[in-house]
């Protein structure tokens, strides 16, 4: 019988995330529950990877888990604070790319090709050779290369393939064998499922294998590439998950999450209550309800949106005809 890949977040993170790993940390519907478990387990020396790294990345930096990032956008650097300071004093390293670049580099990693060309970055200051060894640099000559097409001599930028050691993703549903199904706009996640060497996926729902087989076109990655499935309702909170619940912007205010870059005190005020102070994601949700009530959870529930119509069928003929009856 095929083995189940379902396990707790504690087991998934301790087994599949090693200190020093490069970690895809997600974009839309980021795997906040898994990220908080990484902080809870005090992993260190991690590299963060993502087209745009949102507030989930700020948790990893303030938790001293991540010491470098490869991204097109870092929410943690948006306002003055400790992260901007760490970028200035060299304690936090960074390599600037763009949303398109990271998405393409993950695709190249998934495809098993050494690099992928882009026509982005042409004409920018990014490509100025003097900027290769900037203060945050850790990739240097391996970051990218300005080249010319062997076919028509046109300039392009070669982006090296990106294969994160591990990807942390949150999806709508999966079966116990790790077949993951996703719908809605996906950002760079679609290729991260295939680029990472280890794939940990938290899901809103574990559905039957039959449910997956009945709509295989919704599968974004088959179980053969997945290391662990964690059943984690509200696992994207305070981000949302299409079809389940929407973003909880209010929480980021009241919990102080939006202020953690401003001081160690503000970081600990938030983390001690919402990360270190709870045992796991279930504890996080219990605390949320204690603090704000069931109504607060209900307030982020989805109440609008489209539902697919019947009519789609993966149909075939049981008996094929090789000779015409007549």
């Amino acid at each position, binding site marked *: 019988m095929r083995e189940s890949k379902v396990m707790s977040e504690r087991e998934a993170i301790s087994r599949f995330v090693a200190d020093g790993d490069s970690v895809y940390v997600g*974009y*839309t519907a980021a795997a906040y529950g898994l990220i908080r478990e990484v902080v809870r387990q005090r992993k260190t020396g991690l590299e963060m990877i993502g*087209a*745009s790294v949102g507030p989930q990345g700020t948790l990893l930096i303030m938790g001293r888990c991540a010491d470098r990032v490869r*991204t*097109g*956008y*870092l*929410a943690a*650097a*948006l306002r*003055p604070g400790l992260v*901007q300071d760490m*970028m*200035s004093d060299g304690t936090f390293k960074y390599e*600037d790319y*763009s*949303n*398109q*670049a990271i*998405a*393409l580099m993950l*695709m190249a990693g998934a495809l098993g090709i050494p690099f992928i060309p*882009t*026509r*982005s*970055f*042409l*004409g*920018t*200051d*990014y490509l100025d050779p*003097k*900027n290769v060894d*900037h*203060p945050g640099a850790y990739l240097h000559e391996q970051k990218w290369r300005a080249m010319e097409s062997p076919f028509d001599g*046109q*300039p*392009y930028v070669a982006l090296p393939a990106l294969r994160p050691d591990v990807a942390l993703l949150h999806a709508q549903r999966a079966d116990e064998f790790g077949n993951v199904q996703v*719908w*809605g*706009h*996906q*950002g*760079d*996640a*679609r*290729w991260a499922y295939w680029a990472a060497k280890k794939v940990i996926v938290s899901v809103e729902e574990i559905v039957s294998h039959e449910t997956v087989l009945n709509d295989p076109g919704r599968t974004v990655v088959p179980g053969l590439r997945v290391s662990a499935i964690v059943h984690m309702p509200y696992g994207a909170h305070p981000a*949302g998950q*299409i079809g389940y619940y*929407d*973003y909880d*912007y209010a929480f980021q205010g009241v919990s102080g999450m939006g202020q953690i870059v401003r001081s160690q005190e503000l970081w600990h005020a938030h983390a001690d209550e919402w990360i270190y102070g709870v045992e796991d994601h279930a504890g996080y949700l219990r605390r949320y309800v204690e603090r704000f009530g069931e109504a607060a959870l209900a307030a982020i529930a*989805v109440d*609008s*949106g*489209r539902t697919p119509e019947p009519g789609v069928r993966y149909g075939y003929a049981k008996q094929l005809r090789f000779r015409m009856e007549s």
Partner: protein
Amino acid sequence: MEYTLAELMCVVAAREMPKEGTVMLGMGLPVLAGTLAKLMHAPELRVCTEVGAFDWEPRPDVPRTSIGIHDFILNDGAAMVSDMVDALGTLLMGGNVDIGVLAAAQVDRFGNLNTLLMGDYLAPERRLGGTGGNTEIACLAKRVLTIMPQERRRFVSRVDFNTSPGYISGPGARRRAGLDPQGPNIVVSTFGVFGFDTPDGGESGSCEMVLEAVFPNLDPDTVKLETGWDLRVAPHVREVEEPTEDELTLLRRLDPHHFYLTPGRY
């Protein structure tokens, strides 16, 4: 009806958008202005985002515009939803985006944008969030409309760091860099509307920003005061029309949480 210059900036940016064609809306005010255009004069505009929503048609009673570009509401009315490789690769780099709409921290006389840092890249005074998809949209959209508050520290002679090429250093520079010669064509600020001196789509002329219209009760000299270089002014500068009540009402309805526009700011 009372309004702020930031509100007028969004309304004017919406008015400046073409009636049809494929538009990619960057982070920030472009989302608000693009949605406004779509619901006002440009129902045939095909609104796309880098997260992977294609040809979004907001419902007439849409409760808000997208909060950021990841808002799930973009899945309600999109003709296709997919991923970022399809949006910034297949759609954009594949040559299907007619106009990109962008915001930035700085813009310069050639329409180059900076989204990354203040100061020197090798010794930054201050880092910003980063470019996101701004760089590829500026490189690869057929035309670019930029929305940015008019401030001398933002309208600079040369951006601290060119994350998103306009005409770079002048005529032909985009082509020499390997890009299509045509770059940005419109900038809308809190003071006025700018075009570019590109008689030949980026191959000739000065390729510099040119003041073409000013907001009500403002004159070119005031705009020059908040511009960090000797700004070119069109021979006949028109005055932008006041925002209509419909425009302002819809604009405010689209931003119910004041996520985009803080009342009374500017």
